[in-house]
């Protein structure tokens, strides 16, 4: 910290509450108007946008799911032809994985992590704005392509050679591969921001053993993203090169290898599952104490389990390839590692059960969604143990059994906690409560609708129904159960519809929430709902893992930050001792312009490799403007 104070240096210690809030608002607020909205770097505004966009993609992907169920309700139905059906299931999977599940988890982190660790903005806030625009462009690319009947039709896994130059003519596979690039850029950017925010911007006193469990989850998830995503970027770039400039990475006739694609894709693809699941377990660990009215049992084992899951996630990818004829010895290793991941997951389940057992549970909607999680995720985890076994996998691989399995894991394991998290944190985002009465209906419809839809798929898979088929002959005898599944899907859709209705209704008509409507223990509840642009008038000081429970009347605070410019506190990695005051970037339109330039370059490169050459120029110009030093002394401080 500098000892010399310029004459205009205004510190928070000099001001009374009211004028402090006024001064901070003037410094941190996002200006009104379109330009203000496009230039903002406020993590709360960007986080809210991210969440809303991701839920739009959930709804769109859900509609595709219903279309598939319409076609499959009867044998040899002719509602949707094979070409459109292949696009639909490809876009459904791609959309749900890359445009909904991963972004929505990161979006929650963008909003909540800075609040939970008690800082004023996320690290690298302009990068954060950039990442949102790139993500949005990726989503628009996929959906516009789909509407124009050039949606990818090679599966969300895009196996070569089917997605290669010889068998996938046109631009469909290129759009898939380039959309991957868009969403990977945004995911990597957010991951870096979160790692830095968590490690360097925690409130004083929030040593690593006092970090909220959701924040721990996001830290681990971010490291998994940073380590896993490059594999798929290498793969999709190699695919684009094969298609665009005739390299032969995946062409066996020219010394390439078809299985190389699968290794690269699943080296990313399996950790991807945990990139979605680990944030969800963090949400549970953060919500459960509030509704059990006691601190979480087993903080340390829970943190270790999450870290262990993140590490083991990288040792499982081959279980997606058990039928490709790899050597038995290698397959056996991956059976053992795939089963071993049941242990850290078991630890978490048991710790949560202990928290419920020794707590005084209250059945509010978030808690109901956690119970729905228990009911649904555990069967998904157990069928996961089944598909981890090489011999069993040879029967169920690529059948509806696997479709059932991963929907149990992803919807039961991640979407159910996520819906609970929306009910839980909505008051913080919007300042109003969602309806408990509607929430019960939502929980009930989702739980019943989901299980009736997806449980029969286990049996269909064992009866021989393979995945990704647009039709099946009547004599297979799958018709009755498929009709039942399709009708149940309507119940599930009704649950989601009711949820969306409640979200819109509560924004206007929900009762006002106040700072801490649930009586929760973590820092995001120590400020107004919704929080002011500067998050906290004074930076809280943390002395335990449950600060709001352990100092219920008022939190100690750290002072000395400037009011007349954006400034936040940098603390040490393990102990969170204050180290420095750090300037936080102001609003800027350049992240948007840089995103437009980057996306145009990537999009044009689908058509000609020269786009990369010429497209670099505007990208470089935009980045230069973005990072141009302003010359003011505080910028260089």
């Amino acid at each position, binding site marked *: 910290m500098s000892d010399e104070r310029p004459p205009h240096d205004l510190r928070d210690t000099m001001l009374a509450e009211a004028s402090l809030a006024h001064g901070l608002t003037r410094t941190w607020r996002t200006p009104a108007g379109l330009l203000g909205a496009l230039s903002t770097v406020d993590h709360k505004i960007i986080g809210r946008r991210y969440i809303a966009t991701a839920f739009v993609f959930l709804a769109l992907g859900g509609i595709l799911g219903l279309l598939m169920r319409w076609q499959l309700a009867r044998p040899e139905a002719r509602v949707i032809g094979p070409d459109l059906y292949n696009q639909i299931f490809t876009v459904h999977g791609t959309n749900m994985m890359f445009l909904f599940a991963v972004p929505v988890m990161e979006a929650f982190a963008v909003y909540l992590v800075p609040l939970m660790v008690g800082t004023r903005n996320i690290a690298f806030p302009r990068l954060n704005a950039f990442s949102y625009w790139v993500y949005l462009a990726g989503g628009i690319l996929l959906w516009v392509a789909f509407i124009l009947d050039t949606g990818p039709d090679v599966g969300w896994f895009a196996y070569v050679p089917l997605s290669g130059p010889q068998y996938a003519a046109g631009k469909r596979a290129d759009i898939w591969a380039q959309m991957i690039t868009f969403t990977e850029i945004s995911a990597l950017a957010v991951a870096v921001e979160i790692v830095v925010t968590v490690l360097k911007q925690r409130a004083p006193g929030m040593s690593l053993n006092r970090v909220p469990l959701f924040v721990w989850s996001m830290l681990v998830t971010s490291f998994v993203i940073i380590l896993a995503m490059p594999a798929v970027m290498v793969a999709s770039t190699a695919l684009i090169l094969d298609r665009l400039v005739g390299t032969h990475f995946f062409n066996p006739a020219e010394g390439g290898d078809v299985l190389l694609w699968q290794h690269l894709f699943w080296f990313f693809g399996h950790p991807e599952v945990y990139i979605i699941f680990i944030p969800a377990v963090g949400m549970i660990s953060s919500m459960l104490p509030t509704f059990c009215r006691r601190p979480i049992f087993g903080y340390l084992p829970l943190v270790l389990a999450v870290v262990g899951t993140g590490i083991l996630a990288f040792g499982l990818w081959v279980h997606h390839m058990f*039928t490709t004829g790899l050597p038995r010895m290698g397959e056996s290793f991956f059976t053992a590692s795939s089963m071993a991941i*049941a242990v850290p997951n078991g630890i978490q389940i048991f710790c949560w059960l202990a928290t419920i057992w020794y707590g005084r549970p209250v059945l509010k909607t978030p808690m109901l969604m956690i119970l729905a999680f228990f009911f649904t995720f555990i069967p998904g985890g157990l069928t996961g143990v089944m598909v981890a*076994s090489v011999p069993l996998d040879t*029967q169920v691989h690529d059948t509806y059994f696997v479709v059932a399995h991963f929907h149990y894991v992803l919807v039961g394991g991640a979407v159910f906690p996520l819906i609970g998290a929306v009910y839980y944190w909505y008051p913080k985002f919007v300042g109003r409560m969602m309806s408990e009465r509607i929430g019960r209906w939502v929980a009930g419809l989702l739980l019943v609708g989901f299980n009736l839809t997806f449980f029969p798929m286990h049996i269909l898979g*064992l*009866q021989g129904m393979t995945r990704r088929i647009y039709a099946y002959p009547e*004599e297979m005898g799958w018709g009755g159960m498929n009709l039942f599944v399709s009708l149940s899907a309507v119940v599930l859709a009704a649950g989601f519809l009711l949820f969306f209705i409640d979200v819109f209704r509560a924004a206007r008509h929900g009762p006002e929430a106040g700072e801490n409507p649930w009586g929760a223990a973590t820092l995001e509840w120590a400020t107004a709902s919704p929080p002011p642009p500067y998050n906290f008038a004074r930076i809280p000081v943390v002395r335990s893992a449950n600060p709001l429970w352990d100092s219920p009347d008022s939190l100690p605070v750290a002072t000395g930050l400037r009011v007349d410019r954006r400034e936040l506190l940098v603390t040490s990695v393990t102990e969170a001792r204050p180290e420095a005051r750090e300037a936080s970037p102001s609003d800027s339109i350049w992240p948007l312009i840089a995103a437009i330039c980057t996306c145009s370059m990537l999009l044009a490169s689908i058509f000609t490799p020269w786009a990369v050459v010429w497209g670099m120029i505007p990208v470089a110009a935009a980045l230069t403007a973005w990072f141009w030093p302003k010359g003011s002394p505080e910028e260089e401080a």
Partner: protein
Amino acid sequence: MPRPWLLAIGLLCTGCSSNWQSALEPQGDVARHLDGLFWLFTITAVVIWLAVMLVLLLGLWRRARLPQAVADRRAGIAVGAAVAATVVIISGLTLASYLATRPLASDAPDALVIRLRGFQWWWEATYQDEAPDRGFLTANEIHIPVGRPVRIELAAADVIHSFWVPNLAGKQDMIPGRDNAITFTAQQPGIWRGQCAEFCGLQHAHMALLVVAEPPEAFDRWREAQIAEARPPADEVEAEGQRLLEAKACSACHTVRGTTAAGTLGPDLTHLGSRQYLAAGMLPMTRGAMAAWIADPQGVKPGNNMPMVPLTADELQALSAYLVSLK
């Protein structure tokens, strides 16, 4: 050649049709192994799920008020025990899985070898023999002898496909540039259906394979019949059909041994009429279905590689009659 037992099995299969492509009705040694393993895992899973649900319900229902220190100590013991139990169960299941893998890898020296190649969207089967003139090609329907190990060598002609006949064995992929194989033994006679299990493009849904397991004598008779050249036309109409096959575009892609049709892009049609289905499991082998298929292949199976060849009604009649007669 009438084969009453085969007909009877065919009728039986249509009666309980949902079982002719099912992992739950194992009819081969490998599938039986897997079935046992499946139930071991399933029962374990159900017991674990019920136990967790019971604890959850009791936890919600009970209203204990213990001091937190006492509660934490007891919870620590319970969670520790549950984790230990998880480790034991997981190790047990892993071991069971290894033990079940071993017989799958065993090699049978006396096995019947069939080479199967996946195409978009049909199967080409090659039966080899030490005497070169006793090898033959067929498509979309293979016959195997009951009680003798069969080794299927798997290859792909274009994209990745996957061989899966669940009543007999688990699946194995057919990958361009790689050679895979799977060995199993059918334990009783019957007709089993398989289906491509790896997404392979537009008509992935309609890429079925029929496996007919029959007693060794019946299998040998079938084999001799397949080795023979195509049966000559029996009447005027069939003769006209053969002439059309040779003259029109058909012969560019298809082979009928004993005629001048010698194309190799599409399935071998030498004994087409002896197969039960047409177009990789899409249509029954009848004259009507044959005429419908030839008249509009893209309407029946959109996207497949067979073009529509313009024919008059009489020509269509003759050609279908001839093809169905190729027993």
